[in-house]
């Protein structure tokens, strides 16, 4: 999925660049700069999704949810079960193509939302149920 999104993004950038530099002549840059940008984008498409995939982890226990995301900046987030406020299940257009879904867990803090991206749809649904039940079982008003 990441391969697709990043490839699509890179393609858009590249096409825009070529169009701007070539026929329209808006950007006055030498051809080798365009080629360099193309090569960089290709490298990005080839490497970053793999890297991302290697970094991304998640885990749910009885008391907390844990995620590890990112590629250049690696971010690990931990939220205790008792502070969970909502559990979202989102299927984007591209994720649907692959039968994947994203589960987002939010807490009272705007900085504390955890997103588990690219889960198998069924796994995601089961996870949502599990989280909802567990979060419900803990006392407190989550602030």
């Amino acid at each position: 999925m990441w391969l697709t999104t990043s490839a699509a993004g890179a393609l858009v950038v590249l096409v825009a660049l070529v169009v701007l530099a070539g026929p329209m002549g808006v950007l006055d840059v030498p051809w080798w700069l365009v080629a360099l940008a193309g090569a960089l984008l290709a490298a990005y498409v080839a490497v970053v999704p793999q890297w991302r995939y290697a970094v991304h982890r998640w885990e749910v226990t009885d008391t907390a949810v844990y995620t590890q995301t990112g590629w250049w900046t690696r971010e690990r987030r931990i939220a205790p079960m008792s502070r969970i406020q909502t559990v979202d299940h989102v299927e984007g257009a591209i994720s649907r193509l692959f039968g994947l879904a994203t589960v987002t867990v939010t807490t009272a803090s705007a900085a504390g939302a955890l997103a588990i991206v690219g889960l198998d749809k069924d796994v995601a649904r089961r996870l949502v149920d599990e989280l909802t039940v567990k979060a419900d079982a803990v006392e407190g008003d989550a602030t």
Partner: protein
Amino acid sequence: MTPHDGAHVTEPDLSAYPPPEPGTELQRDAEWQRLDPRMLFVHPIREVIRFLPVLIVFALARTAAGGEPWQLLGVAIPVALGLLRYLTTRFRIAAGRIELQRGLLNRHVLSTPVDRVRTVDLTSSPIHRLLGLTTLKIGTGTASTSDEDRIDLDGLPLDRARALREQLLRTSTADDAIEESPDREVVTFALSWLRFAPLTGSGVVIAAAALGAASQLLQATGFFERFNPETVRLPGLSLVVLVPLLVAAALAVVSLLAIGGYLVTNWGFRLTRTRGSGTWHLTRGLFTTRETTLDDERVAGVNVSEPLGLRAARGARLSAIVTGLDRKQQGSSALVPPGPLAVVERVAREVLDSAEPVDTPLVGHGPRAVRRRWTRALAPAGVVAAGGVLAVALGEPTWLLAGLVTLPVAALLAWDRTRSLGHALVAGHLVARSGSVVRRRRILEADHVIGWNFQATWFQRRAGLTTLVATTAGGNQAVAVLDVPEGEAVRVAQAALPHLIGEFVELGDFPAQSAARA
């Protein structure tokens, strides 16, 4: 906007709630209430002021075309609007809910449970004060930014508003054992604090705003067309005298504006502690007075910030990190305006009910964090300086050598940032300090930490550092400890909330499942 069908709010089951004690403010408000009749004066005046531009146009038109009676409509409409606003606004506090109804065409009913009340603000504009009224603003920590969704009871007599506030907050904390005890003054405004006003940078903001307004006015009156620089006779001074003179004049104006702004917002500043109900009570304002009440339980921590100018004069300002209030409502969370550091620290100690978090020397972050500060400051400056030197070498004008100035500035910055950097975990509080231009010491109670984020870029990982972020429900939503060594970050997080992190961290080894592959 869709019209709200608010008239059909289901009547709550009143029997579930004990009736409020007779004779109290809450009991009076159990029935639908209008706001104070004196608002009949305030609303029309305010509407007239709002319509003032239109009225002026009308007046001009009248003098041009000769007086005609229909033009009095210009005054009548705002007055009528004001009356209608009064007649269509009602509120009640019953069955554990606050309900506010308003609007003639789009009827709008707001309703919120009393136990969700987090802050109660009383704001009185000069018109209100003249009539002994005040606006009661109820803060529930909602994320909605729409004006429509705020609960403002605009126009209550001052004593009624005060009684209502006390009872609302008492209900929301469910604190039955209230012993009457006199409020204790924690800090009051001193005139000597004015010396900090010019150092805050707020003067520059006011000056810029004033300048903008003035230039717009001049533009509107066609000043720039008529202004011809060559006709202005310069006094017989050389540029060397004139430039410093202008700078000094600008500085003086900015300082005066800053002092003025400081006086207007902070005149009569007083922070008191209501012992019995456990609330902090804050009053301030010269023209528009503002009273804020903070519930002790919702104060998650404090933020001592020292901008460069203030720090040089040994000053600081203090704000509270309040659960449910975010940065946009900063006005409600300020505890001490720019004032002497000693006062700020004393108040911080009192608010936290513990001296240690304010006074403990902080743990530094080790040589690798120091190196990172230096590289981060020097690298961009180095690029600028090198670029300047290169350009001069290639025959560009020599003033580009000024780029070299960035080097010592960056070095100073790095040195100061290194000195500021630190953290501590004492007496159940997480303390983090960082920054140079604005140095902040954030103190957050460990109980109010919601979760942890560990952020590390590739560079940070290579240096074995990580940024530990404690998320919380108030203030900036997070307190970040910059560039801590990884092991120390885990240790701090574990010590603060023992049960949370232990199961994930086993000597830096994070066991985890893998996400599904695309």
